[in-house]
């Protein structure tokens, strides 16, 4: 907040609101809790062409209606957003936009979260006065994975301006003019930017639709939960949309400290892909030569009886939550296995020009920093297993391991959500949940501790690994079993430098920076509601 000299007061629909000089009328109205309908204005896109004419408001002293998205608020200004003149103007804009709109809401994927539908409904024009035949533009493909329905488009140019202002790649243009205008790729250019998926999110109508999502689910069929993208160490805040216990879509969730309104396409894909492959659904123990399913009580008892402190190797994963890594570390300590390590997949780093903090980072795992904080180190390869040694594979998918990996171990404890070929050599398999199936925290590249919520029901009797690891430790006489994520987080925070001042509840939706190493602990409030 700046000093009082910079503050101005204006009246919007009879509500006095105090804002900083330079705020636009639309933002001031938002502050006062008044929504001014708008299409072309998007809070995350800097350019404001004021071309949709939807946000016109009446300002006393001004001869004409003014677009509130660009009109700066002035001291003592009196604004009417819902006066008769403003309402009439808005109605006319909607009527124009609907002239050639196909009104195919029943089959449009945006129905239920469409700004055109909402405002048309609000202005309440049930019948069109337009008797002529509608112009049909059909559909097009603007990118490999993005469809464009020209008829639905209202030419707000949000997508064009996202590519220009934020992505810094002028791949999209408005072709033709007037009622024939449509969005197309620039001649000779392809829309292949790694952040192109955001144009679907900024589209206020159903003109741009991701091909993976087309006709998949209606807006009201989906549950949404606040997650963290596991695609790289940035830790973008995301909304996970779930229908019938399957992830159908991920969308960025506003967090100005991490990813603003955006996320990359790699992130969008990687959670949807967790639906696939063979899952571990029940604990398995090799009691009589073969791996047989067993109950949790039985398996924990069986494993606890056979685990012995002694020579051994381990591999963990940077995709595990902090709580799981904390209890993994305790287990490895009990086993006397020093220096647990994790492998991290790396890839090309890709920047988003308009929001430099957000990158698709080279480290393609969400919690490398957390794993280091909790006492693990990086490695490039799976550890060699000496004959007869104990092998603990925890969360690592054993990619690249030969099929007989671990077969020579004295005791091979496999803890994971999926079952790669080498997992079938295990002495015991304890089924863990994947990230969207549990609650927990990650630490991103800059040391921001962020919480993620559960989006899916786990298959079978798979449980969060921190839960059964703490129980196993209790059975081994080395700790206290916990069933509650708050308790698990508290147990971890009490013993981990950097986390000491943080609480599960205090992390909120925006996360908090680690304390120590020069960074202050930031008290975090609840994140702002997701806005288009």
């Amino acid at each position, binding site marked *: 907040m700046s000093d009082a000299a910079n503050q101005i007061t204006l009246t919007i629909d009879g509500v006095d609101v105090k804002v900083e000089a330079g705020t636009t009328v639309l933002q001031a109205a938002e502050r006062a809790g008044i929504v001014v309908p708008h299409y072309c204005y998007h809070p995350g896109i800097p350019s404001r062409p004021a071309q949709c004419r939807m946000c016109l408001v009446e300002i006393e002293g001004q001869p004409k209606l003014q677009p509130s998205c660009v009109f700066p608020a002035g001291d003592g200004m009196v604004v009417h957003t819902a006066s008769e003149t403003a309402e009439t103007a808005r109605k006319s804009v909607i009527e124009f936009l609907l002239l050639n709109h196909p009104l195919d*809401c*029943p*089959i449009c994927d945006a129905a239920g979260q469409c700004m055109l539908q909402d405002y048309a409904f609000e202005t309440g024009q049930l019948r069109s006065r337009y008797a002529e035949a509608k112009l049909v533009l059909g*559909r097009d493909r603007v990118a490999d994975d993005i469809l464009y329905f020209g008829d639905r488009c209202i030419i707000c140019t949000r997508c064009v301006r996202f590519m220009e202002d934020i992505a810094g790649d002028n791949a999209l243009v408005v072709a033709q003019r007037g009622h024939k205008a449509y969005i197309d790729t620039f001649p000779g250019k392809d829309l292949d930017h790694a952040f192109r998926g955001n144009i679907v999110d900024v589209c206020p109508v159903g003109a741009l639709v991701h091909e993976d999502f*087309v*006709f*998949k689910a*209606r807006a*009201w*069929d989906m549950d949404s939960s606040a997650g963290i993208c596991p695609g790289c160490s940035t830790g973008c805040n995301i909304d996970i949309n779930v229908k019938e216990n399957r992830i159908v879509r991920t969308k960025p969730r506003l967090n100005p400290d991490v990813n603003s309104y955006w996320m990359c396409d790699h992130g969008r894909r990687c959670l949807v892909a967790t639906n696939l492959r063979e899952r571990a659904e029940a604990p398995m123990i090799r009691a009589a030569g073969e791996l047989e399913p067993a109950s949790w009580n039985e398996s924990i008892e069986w494993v606890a009886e056979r685990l012995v402190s002694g020579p051994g190797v381990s591999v963990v994963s940077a995709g595990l939550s902090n709580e799981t890594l904390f209890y993994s570390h305790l287990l490895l300590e009990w086993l006397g296995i020093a220096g647990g390590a994790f492998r991290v997949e790396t890839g090309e780093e890709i920047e988003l020009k308009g929001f430099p903090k957000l990158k698709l980072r080279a480290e393609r795992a969400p919690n490398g920093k957390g794993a280091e904080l909790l006492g693990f180190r990086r490695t490039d390869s799976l550890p060699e297993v000496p004959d007869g040694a104990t092998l603990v594979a925890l969360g690592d998918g054993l990619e690249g391991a030969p099929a007989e990996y671990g077969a020579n171990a004295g005791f091979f404890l496999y803890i994971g959500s999926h079952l790669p070929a080498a997992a079938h050599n295990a002495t015991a398999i304890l089924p863990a949940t994947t990230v969207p199936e549990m609650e927990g925290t990650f630490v991103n590249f800059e040391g921001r501790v962020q919480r993620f919520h559960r989006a899916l029901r786990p298959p079978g009797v798979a449980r969060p690994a921190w839960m059964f690891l703490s129980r196993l430790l209790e059975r081994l006489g080395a700790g206290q079993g916990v069933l509650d994520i708050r308790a698990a987080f508290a147990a971890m925070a009490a013993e981990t430098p950097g986390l000491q001042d943080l609480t599960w509840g205090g992390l909120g939706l925006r996360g908090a920076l680690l304390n120590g190493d020069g960074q202050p602990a930031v008290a975090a409030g609840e994140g702002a509601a997701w806005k288009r």
Partner: protein
Amino acid sequence: MPGDVRFVERPEAESSYVRAISQGLGITVRHFLRPDKPTQQYPDEKWELAPRWRGTHRMAVHEDGRAKCVGCGLCPTVCPVNCIKLIPAEDENGERYAAVYEIDEFRCIFCGFCQEVCPVEAIHLGVHYENAEYTRERWVYDLARLCENDHPVTALWDPADPSSE
């Protein structure tokens, strides 16, 4: 003996059943001699149903036999008993269609909301009630069976006065 049991004597005229029996038989005989016979020789003779009778569903089809359903998902949304299962998909022309469409007629309460909400007038209730089956599974009508049904469709409202109840 616990409690006092009292025996009340009633006059013969009140306690006799002869009068009630003859009254009842009187009704029987009166109906027996009625000139119009209300008994119907079902299934040889069938009831004439009202045009607003709400019975077995029917799916409207295009001329080429495809279902008119566009898979919008409004009927499973509005259905108060969740008896409609719909999985939409994209056909070879890029159009949305119902890849799976099933109605559990056992669970259905024949409220007619699905017909009312349908934006393309595809799903209808029918003026039809004869749907006895040997197994419960047969009561779940799939899309092909709904399209095959050819009984008259229900008029949910009076066409002459559509805004009335």
